[in-house]
């Protein structure tokens, strides 16, 4: 049990009779890069929000980082990082101020904040822009910054919701390098995306259709199973059955 980062059992979320997430079950191992795929409207974000403690499940069970999502929600929050689909750093604060704020909320000591900030800025080559307002950064840098802030406090698991939306291919590749670096440090990465090529970068993927998980395996196995050359084709075959679109 303890080497599983996330355990989900028949988790559901219903909105006014509409089952956005329909009894999904899966497990994520520690240090894994788990890709949570699906078309728009399949229920990925809803499911993720339940795991992050942003949304109350309608039924089912789950543990995140070993904590129960119903009873130990606040403990989960201490051990996870999150990057939402909408950019959510404060545009009217500087890079440094944003880092300081979030790091402080997570309880990191001021001296450690200082040193880690320097590290982060160097890594992202943003030393000169450290005191610029975040709103002035181009999109790609914002995304990378948001990711770095999300893992600043060395969480066990980091949840990424469509982190590479609207970003150029080079930045996307940089981003995934950052994800690999994170896993190297032992962080489990749970990422949703609708870019099927990114699915190739994951250890395992699941594909959600109409609120349910219709496929769950490594990309390699799935391609073999569906006799496809790319995850794109796998997805097309599976998603063709989909009745819901956003």
């Amino acid at each position, binding site marked *: 049990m303890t080497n599983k980062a996330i355990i989900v059992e028949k988790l559901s979320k219903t909105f006014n009779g509409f089952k956005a997430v329909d009894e999904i079950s899966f497990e994520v191992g520690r240090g894994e890069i788990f890709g949570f795929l699906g078309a728009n409207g399949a229920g990925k974000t809803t499911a993720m929000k339940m795991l*992050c403690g*942003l*949304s*109350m499940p309608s039924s089912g069970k789950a543990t995140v980082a070993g904590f129960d999502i119903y009873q130990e929600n606040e403990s989960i929050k201490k051990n996870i990082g999150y990057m*939402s689909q*909408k950019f959510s*750093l404060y545009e009217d604060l500087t890079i440094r101020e944003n880092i300081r*704020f979030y790091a402080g*909320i997570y309880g990191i000591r*001021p001296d450690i904040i200082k040193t880690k900030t320097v590290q982060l800025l160097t890594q992202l080559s943003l030393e000169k822009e450290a005191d610029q307002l975040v709103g002035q950064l181009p999109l790609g840098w914002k995304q990378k910054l948001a990711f770095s802030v999300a893992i600043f406090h060395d969480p066990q698991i980091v949840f990424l919701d469509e982190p590479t939306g609207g970003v150029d291919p080079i930045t996307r590749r940089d981003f995934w390098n950052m994800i690999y670096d994170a896993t190297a440090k032992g962080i489990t990465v749970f990422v949703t995306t609708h870019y099927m090529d990114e699915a190739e970068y994951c250890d395992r993927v699941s594909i959600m259709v109409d609120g349910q998980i219709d496929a769950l395996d490594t990309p390699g196995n799935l391609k073999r199973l569906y006799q496809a050359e790319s995850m794109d084709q796998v997805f097309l075959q599976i998603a063709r059955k989909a009745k819901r679109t956003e």
Partner: protein
Amino acid sequence: MNPLKYILEKEFKQIFRDPAIIRVIFILPVIQLIILPLTADYEIKNINISIIDRDHSTTSNRLIHKITSSNYFKLIDYSGDFNQAMTGIDNDKADLIIELPRGFEADLYAQKKTTIFLAVNAINGVKANLGATYLRTIIQNYNNDFRIALLTPGRFNELPIIETTSSNWYNPKMNYKFFMVPGILVLLITMIGLNLSAINIVREKEIGTIEQINVTPIKKIHFILGKLIPFWILGLIVITIGLFIAWLFYGIIPLGTYFTIYVFAAVYLLIILGIGLLISTYAENQQQAMLISFFLLMIFVLMGGLYTNIDSMPEWAQWVTKFNPVAYFIEVMRRVVLKGSGLSDIKQLLSIMLIFAIVVNYWAVISYRKRS
């Protein structure tokens, strides 16, 4: 380190980087306190009166002279044509029409009943009432003088006269500004406090940064305090600016102590900000938040005794007023500034406010959900 410290840091930085807020804090008090009292003058003067004199006697002329020489009335029509006078009322050129009937003097001397007719444009109730009251007083005085003159002194005084002296306390010059400015000050911080705190959380909801906060282990109470404290300090700054302008422009110095005002203001602000936060928690977007706070503001202020008197409200409305924090503060402001009331005089009101503050903010903390 205390997470509260970090969230306060962030909130303060955001506030001071927001040009709109800075402008509002400094410009609004100035506009409101300088222009509003000039407009908010309820002193009834220049009541326009049309006089129709069908008698044209010495007596009627003397009475008319008495009326027109008073400071309250302005004679605008003396044509004697009733229709013209009525048109005057329709056009809002005249507020009152007074008609002295033919035979006025003769009847009076003959000790027969004489009646003067008065028509009042009563749409504006205040003006109408006061105008009619002034007129009645002037006529009564004239009547008394008339009587005394006829009853020659030395004879048995059949009619004892009750002399009434009246004095006006606390605002002897009857300066309406002294009455309005304290109330406007309350309006000012209520407007700013309510609107700013109402948009605040909703804004984060709309932009999306609220999610990032909700996913952290931050405690609800820290989050709410982080929103409350900066605006609370801002509110106190606004009051200071307001009091300063009140002194500078109107020479208003409270008879009581500034300390009393600040103590009450501190508690009052907690209530207003708490209400704003509640609105912010329940509203889905900034539009809603603004709408709700606007309407609430209107109701609170208009029923708070700024515009009309609470005493003249029906029972049920007076009851509702007991839940209106604005009413409390306006009352306290006026008392402290004009009557010199101190903390002991208002301690009952203050304790009620404290209870409200605790209830409202407790509600705000409880109703804020990190997980929906």
